[in-house]
């Protein structure tokens, strides 16, 4: 459902060039949760932005359902739901107004939008504050609204950019349940996070991103075998300590690990 193929992206800041992505490739089929893991600055958000079509890669491409993404690909965007840490709410709109607004942005017919709203209200327990203005909500409530917002147009692909940052245990649990729910619905989910514990809980497969390179990709068992570490945390630390392992270089050179293609 989601395919990233050899994505390269450089940023130029006042004459200096930063390599944000150096040929990242992976694929996420429907019904799978793929964890894009990496420390801050590894290139997770850049990858998501390219997949959403907000950024144009210098080379390589990203596809959603077989259609390439790009700045003018409205049809592709309609198939993506996006939830990010930085996402906010409209303080002066009620929860209902805000969710219906996003249904309108995605051109969801009015009646269908109301049906979906009712369903999401039940799933994410929004009923208590559905007609409250968003500025009165707690952080956890806001996060639930943002999760609901991502589903108002019922997209087959969901991109989650560090969705649990700043949330307490209960809030995080809601997000996990949401991700399981997405999986049950058969959606392809791309979860970007630096919290390895939660990735272990919810992801089917992982990609370890470090300084713009996808160092490892595979299931937990595969990665354990490749890195000789039991926990993601250890893998991470050794990866950061040792730099680029030889097998990762290889995989990047051959187009990256894309076991599904």
């Amino acid at each position, binding site marked *: 459902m989601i395919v990233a193929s050899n994505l390269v992206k450089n940023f130029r800041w006042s004459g200096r060039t930063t390599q944000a992505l150096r040929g990242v490739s992976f694929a996420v089929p429907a019904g799978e949760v793929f964890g894009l893991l990496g420390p801050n600055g590894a290139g997770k958000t850049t990858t998501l932005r390219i997949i959403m079509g907000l950024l144009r890669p210098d080379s390589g491409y990203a596809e959603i359902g077989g259609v390439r993404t790009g700045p003018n690909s409205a049809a592709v965007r309609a198939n993506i739901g996006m939830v990010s840490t930085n996402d906010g709410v*409209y303080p002066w709109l009620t929860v209902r107004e805000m969710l219906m607004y996003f249904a309108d942005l995605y051109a969801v017919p009015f009646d269908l939008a109301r049906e979906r709203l009712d369903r999401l209200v039940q799933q994410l327990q929004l009923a208590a504050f559905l007609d409250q203005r968003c500025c009165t909500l707690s952080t956890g409530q806001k996060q639930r609204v943002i999760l609901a917002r991502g589903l108002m147009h019922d997209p087959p692909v969901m991109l989650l950019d560090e969705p649990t940052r700043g949330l307490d245990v209960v809030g995080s649990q809601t997000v996990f349940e949401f991700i399981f729910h997405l999986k049950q619905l058969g959606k392809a989910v791309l979860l970007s996070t630096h919290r390895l514990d939660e990735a272990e809980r919810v992801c089917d497969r992982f990609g370890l991103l470090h300084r713009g390179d996808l160092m490892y990709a595979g299931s937990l068992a595969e990665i354990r075998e490749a890195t000789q570490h039991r926990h993601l945390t250890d893998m991470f630390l050794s990866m950061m300590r040792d730099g680029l392992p030889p097998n990762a270089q290889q995989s990047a050179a051959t187009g990256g690990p894309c076991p599904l293609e």
Partner: protein
Amino acid sequence: MSARVTPARMIRLCLKELRESLRDRRTIVTLVLMPLLVYPLLSLVLNRVLLTGTGAKSGTFVTIGVGQELSDSMLPVLLEIGFGQLGYRQTAPLFLEEIVDDRRRGRSQTDEPPASALPRPQIILLPDNGRTALREGTVDVVISRQSPETEMDRASAGQNNSDRVGSENQHEDRIAGAPESRRRSRFNPLRPLVDEIRAQNQLAEDFDLDRLLDAVGTYEVRYRDRDAQSERALQLLERMMTAINIQAVRGALPGYVPPLLLDATPVAMQANYAEMLATMIPLVLVLMTMAGAVYPAIDLTAGERERGTMEALIVSPTSTAVLLLAKYSAVVTVSLLTALANLAAMSVTLWASGIGKLLFGDGLLSLGVIGTVLALLVLFTMFFAALLLAVTSFAKSFKEAQAYLIPLMLLALTPGVMSLMPGLKFTGLLATVPLVNIVLLARQVLVGAAEWNTALVAIICNAVYALTALVVASRLFGSDASMQGSQGSWGDLLMRPLQVKRYPSLDQMALTMSAMFPLYFIASSVLPSMSRDLSTKLWISAAVSFGLILGLPVWVAWYRRIQWFTTFRLQAGRLSQWPLWLSGVVLLGGSAWMLAHEIFIAAQMLGVGTIEIEHFEQVAMFKDQLSSLPWWLVMFVFALTPALCEEGLFRGFVLSSLHRYSAVWAIGLSAILFGLMHVLTSNVLAVERFLPTTFMGLLLAWIALRTGSIWPGVALHALHNGFLLSASRFEEQLRQWHILVEEGKHLPPLWLALGAVAFAAGCAAIWLGTRGAERVRYPFEESPIE
């Protein structure tokens, strides 16, 4: 899933923006509280300005306090008489009405009292020396009799003080301090006046006129220093006393007329102030409307980014243009609500404080005027909201947006304050300057002197600027450059792209046109007037045309790496096509002017004409001047230059930029732009030129699209202009052969019939000459060049 924009969806998108704005406390503050505060305060200031600036004027009267020691004196009566001498029938004291001298009376009976008639002062008897009342403002001046000692001192010291009236009078010095019998003697200088009143025999029998004689003497006037109202009262008092003195001298010397008479009328002064205030009011309204738009504009653009809702908006399949349009309509709506609130508050304040009546008389501040001013504010808001959105769309945060807006507001203030200059005439050139044009137009409307062709320029200019700003805003809004993690800056936006394109985009066209429009307007009116020689003038104007009309789009295309060949349709076509094209062009060149002429006449008959007789005279004079120049120069400047430049711009650059529209829309839009340009940039704002020029624009655009080449159009354009020029040059010969088209008359039916046939044949030739040929078909999406 497509994101088609239905009206209902668009309305819902707009409503969200409006809700968001109107629920915000900060919007409400500018919307409601500001007008409630500003106008009453402003009216205080205006009142002040009016009082200091215009001197004695209707509606504002002064109070003269009379000191206690004068309580049984006849001074008040004498002052009334003096006021009667100054004034006007309506304000003259009733019981002494008939004593005004014959000349004055004659005038007051025949003349209507002017609108600025002197107000009758209120004279109050005070229980004490009146200093407290003066200080507290109950009275504006206090008059009291000078104590004999000071009087003597001053007289001997020869002091002359403006506080004392008539002290130079020798009689007074002699009589001052003298016993009562002396005052009543026949040397009393008031005696002639009293005698005259007695002779008139108009006063009540029991009124002892001799008591008036007691009033002779020197008086002391106290007034508040640097207080306009008090100074006015002093002036009035001086004038009243001088009037009595003159009258007394006149009585003493029958037939005496003072050698120097001064009759000041405050009308001119009043007009200046009224004009200034008539500018100030729209300026304040415009500024308040601006203030109303600022907050929502920031909130709906930079605010989205700050709240973290921008990314979710941008990743939605709804285009940024639609998102921006929704935001734009919300900003315009809030801004208009602010304008309405301000207009209401202003009208009520003007009405309640009486300033409106003072400024505009009784009828002028009518609902119609308020409505027109509101319409102008709508226009201004549409421009300013677009400008604001363009600026705030670029900002990443509230703070950044505010930092951008402060210079913008200052920039907007400068022309606004400039427009306050009373002598500033609202001409064609100023009509192109944003903000100034609206303020000046509103001033014209307020004083009831709007000229609608200048108004039209202002309106169209605002629309063009608004559209451009909107295009820029939608480009900036949520653009790659504005998102986090990229290197966005203004420089990137203006950077020369790396990719080569075949056709310009719509926003490039809009930007080019809106830059060229005022530039050409200014250059074509200023530069040629630098020379006195007609042929030099013509060369300059041709150079301006080549430099701006053709040069600017050519430069833009080069800078943005848009291919000239495709954009300007430089391909010449196949040789086999040219016989038909050429015959089509010749047939159309000889016949299109007839249809254009008939459309022109029809437009005049419909009453859209603005050309005045003077213009025909100017044209006739210009024709005479042209006939002294070599024929090739006239043809070069008026036929070839416009043919090359205008075809290059309109059928090249503009038509190419409209490739996303269907052929009908592209032809129509380019023709309307062509028509508008001709209405606005000619030295006479001739509205009736719009329809025939647009008609020619339709024809030329059709030919350009059909043939895929600019050249048949250039030929037709040159032929058309050359034909009309020749007709006017060889008018005399034509007259001899009895084939002359008279100005403002229909063509003979036979001509029209022949013309229609030739026109149809010409179109058919072009059509046949392009049949089956490959050509670019509108609409299309441009594919990038690898």
